[in-house]
């Protein structure tokens, strides 16, 4: 069984270590991982702007690229949700390649939790950590229970991080309020977006967290930009980096 590593465009270009960490975690667990050449983007920026005709060829490319693999794994809930929940608009429902890729694409934590069934990780991270739950991971992929929903769900991201030695959890007041990234929203509604982000950072900082961890690097790119500007005493890290044993400050 070969798993294709799907690296989102912004991770490839701006946060390569997140993809390296993802690859290392999977390889260490004995997963046969391939990195198909020619990857770019899932099409989400265009889709979320409403530009459907610009999205379709990009979505088609992704499906063609990954169609021959048993599964596709990606360290970003948002991109996975695009493929799983929103690709139907761009394909014929009977399209076999589309059917295969849309149903076999997993977010990293989801794959480790549901498919690999990881129960042990030999890594340490002796720090105060708070979790930023990305909206798409939470409410579109249901990686955990959103605070609005009364349907009990286990939190897959947290369960995985609990396998790491030394993490001291710090709980923000609002467990899943949006950080304000939202793709092009961050630029379209720059003032509101920044204010949303500042509120999240303050909530995590006030509780004494050293590391704001998330399974979505796009939220973290926005939060990191604000943290650096305002010189807040907190760092961001992708969950894959913690799971692969990176020290504090890797992002």
């Amino acid at each position: 069984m070969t798993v294709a590593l799907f690296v989102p465009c912004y991770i490839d270009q701006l946060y390569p270590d997140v993809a390296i960490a993802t690859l290392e975690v999977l390889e260490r667990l004995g997963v046969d991982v391939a990195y198909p050449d020619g990857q770019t983007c899932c099409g989400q920026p265009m889709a979320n702007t409403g530009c459907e005709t610009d999205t379709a060829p990009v979505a088609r490319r992704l499906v063609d690229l990954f169609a021959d693999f048993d599964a596709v794994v990606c360290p970003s809930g948002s991109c996975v949700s695009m493929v799983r929940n929103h690709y139907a608009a761009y394909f014929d429902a009977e399209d076999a390649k589309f059917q295969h890729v849309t149903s076999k694409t997993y977010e990293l934590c989801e794959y480790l939790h549901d498919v690999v069934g990881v129960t042990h990780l030999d890594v340490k991270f002796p720090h105060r950590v708070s979790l930023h739950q990305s909206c798409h991971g939470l409410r579109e992929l249901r990686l955990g229970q959103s605070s609005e929903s009364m349907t009990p769900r286990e939190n897959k991201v947290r369960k995985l991080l609990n396998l790491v030695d030394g993490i001291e959890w710090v709980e923000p007041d609002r467990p899943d309020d949006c950080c304000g990234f939202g793709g092009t929203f961050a630029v379209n509604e720059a003032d509101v977006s920044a204010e949303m982000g500042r509120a999240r950072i303050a909530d995590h900082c006030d509780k004494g967290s050293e590391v704001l961890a998330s399974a979505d690097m796009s939220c973290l790119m926005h939060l990191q930009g604000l943290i650096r500007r305002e010189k807040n005493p907190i760092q961001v890290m992708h969950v894959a980096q913690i799971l692969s044993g990176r020290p504090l400050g890797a992002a």
Partner: protein
Amino acid sequence: MLPIVQHPAAAKEFVNDPNRSRWHDQALWFVRSKRDKQAASLPEWEYLRETASGIKTHTIANLSHYLQEFERNATARGAVVHWARDAEHHNEIVLRILHDHKTKRIVKSKSMLTEECGLNHFLEDNGIDVVDTDLGERIVQLRGETPSHIVLPAIHIKKEEVGDTFHEHLGTDEGASDPKYLAEAARGHLRDKFLAGEIGITGVNFAIAETGGLVVCTNEGNADLGTSLPRVHIACMGIEKLLPRQRDLGVFTRLLARSATGQPITSYTSHFNGPRDENSELHIVLVDNGRSRLRESETFRAAMHCIRCGACMNTCPVYRRSGGHSYRATVPGPIGSVLSPTRDQNSYKSLPYACSLCGSCSDVCPVKIPLHHQLLAWRGELVGKKLLPVSKRLSMRCASYLFRFPALFRLVGQVGRFALRVLPRWATHNRLNVWTIARELPEPPKESFHQWHRRHRNH
């Protein structure tokens, strides 16, 4: 033609005043937290939502049948049913009833429908004295504003500001801001208005086809007083307020107040089954105003499920920071951003983009309207109608092109990262690069993952 609403610009002043936007955010989050506690107290919460959604889907699918059944049963109880195709028609019907009774003084309880129809202005222009009797609506009315929230109309106003308004209009002590004192003053003021009112106008929360009855939910009892003292009651309702059977009502009253304010039930749930005696009149105005058109749309039809609880506003991180007036619409927040463009796409085209697609609204909605997916669907509609600015459409066209050619994507990425490393800060962090107004750009790595992978894994 309505003016074009630019949400980011309309929100700017509010969001950039931390004293206001953070206080507003906290106030609404408090309501949302109360809702969470109430929802969690019912093991059947998600079952109730599912049931309510099913009842609404069924009702909207069979709307003409249930409307006619309602009309028959309401008429049999002695009510007079009026049909209004749009806001203007609705306002004319109400004015005609007022003229028939030679009345100039109206006491009104909360009704978002009459806000939608602009009834207050219309009546005032026709020489009628309209008094909003809901405390929040009265505050807003005295200030010459509109509600900024459908359940909490004055949520954007601080108690000190209410004190100033009351000092000016009701003669309360200057500088007084004690909520108890102010509420007592409003109570005295409104009591006189109630006694002088000749006709009571209310909204409607639910209308029941099977019985021809109406249900109005309030916390202040103002709908009851406003319909008990005057002899004539005019109830204005959108046609989507219908429920088929009396037994369906319990599903919705259990969801409504819990979702709206985090109360198990509103203080008053008043049932009106025909006029109260032979000397009284009950007029029911059924209003379409674009609802039939919305019903035709497969994509947006579910928005007709809305019971106007306001939970999507309380939970919306954009609404909480930008305030209700930034939407420039009767119904703000997520549901408003879905409904407003159905009235005028061009005017409200920025609203579906005033959303980070976090999905909290869809999860909080008691009738399971897929709000964030509808907002996303609106974006597709707007682009299809070429209502998105050319600059944005063009940038997406370029991005799409870039992502179709991996070699080009890599080249542009490499040049971009190189530029970020060597260019002086002022060239990358300036007002033209909107990202950098409040944030730093990421520190560009020397190599992309693709390059790293070539060096380390492709042997």
